[in-house]
């Protein structure tokens, strides 16, 4: 429904362009609800992982013997920073600075891609030492949880990438702002999940 939306005199956009229209508001609310569901989805994965931690794995392939702190720390920093750059992009979107928004989104993408590359490297490494999807219940649970997260990252990269390309030459308006905003929520959520992954899977795995 086309409301006459009040535009901010400075930015030329409504104060919250992502939910200025009914469509935008719908998307915004719906996406949050979706994230509520995703919370439970990842909880189920975490639960499974916790239930199967180290189960069926030989000593040398247990969590405390295979995880490496350096790489995980590096990945964490990449993803955390990408969360910040995503915030910066959204701030610039609201301020109607398409150029800077695009810049920060690209940085976000690059950081995300770096994360993904590191994860792939990590998985290949595990594969070589024998910790695989089918090697033990622990392996299955580990790859399912971390892999689901990785798949989310991948999807996020494609999504934000598509949005960027599609809107490269278009101004920010109440039609595409919700799309950007929602994708950024998604990206933050990926980071939220990662916080638990590095804490519970990796760090706790290293001490247990």
């Amino acid at each position, binding site marked *: 429904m086309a409301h006459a939306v009040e535009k901010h005199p400075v930015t030329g956009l409504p104060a919250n362009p992502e939910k200025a229209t009914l469509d935008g508001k719908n998307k915004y609310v719906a996406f949050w609800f979706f994230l509520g569901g995703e919370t439970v989805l990842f909880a189920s994965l975490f639960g499974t992982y916790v239930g199967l931690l180290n189960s069926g794995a030989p000593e040398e392939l247990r969590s405390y013997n295979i995880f490496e702190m350096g790489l995980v720390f590096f990945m964490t920093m990449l993803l955390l920073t990408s969360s910040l750059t995503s915030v910066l992009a959204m701030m610039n979107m609201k301020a109607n600075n398409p150029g800077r928004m695009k810049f920060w989104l690209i940085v976000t993408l690059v950081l995300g891609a770096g994360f993904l590359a590191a994860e792939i490297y990590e998985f290949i490494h595990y594969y070589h030492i024998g910790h695989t999807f089918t090697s033990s219940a622990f392996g299955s649970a580990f790859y399912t949880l971390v892999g689901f997260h990785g798949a989310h990252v991948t999807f996020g990269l494609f999504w934000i990438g598509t949005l960027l390309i599609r809107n490269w030459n278009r101004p920010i308006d109440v039609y595409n702002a919700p799309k950007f905003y929602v994708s950024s929520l998604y990206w933050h959520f990926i980071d939220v999940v990662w916080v638990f992954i590095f804490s519970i899977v990796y760090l706790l795995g290293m*001490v247990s």
Partner: protein
Amino acid sequence: MEKRPMNESHKQLELEVKAESKREYQLQLISFAMMILLTFLAFGAVYAELMPVWAAGGFLIILAIIQVFLQLYMFMHMNNRGNTWIVGMMWLGIFVAVITVAALRLLIW
């Protein structure tokens, strides 16, 4: 109150907007700094083997929870006006998530 001419009020507004966005910017940077700090704490604690195993679990999880709330409330602005239902649904989700993990931790053997 006296009415200011149009362009002056516009300038005023512009300044306000700038100030506002600067505040927001700083706020986000502070949140980010805190997240980094929490992350360092977590990794540091494990790296330096500061804690007995039983305490580490609780500690790490608490740090993670704080950090996640920073994400939700600062980065994602979950608490914005008009988000009552969103907050409600997220909390319900968190509730279900917690009992799910607890069950899979405690109710299997």
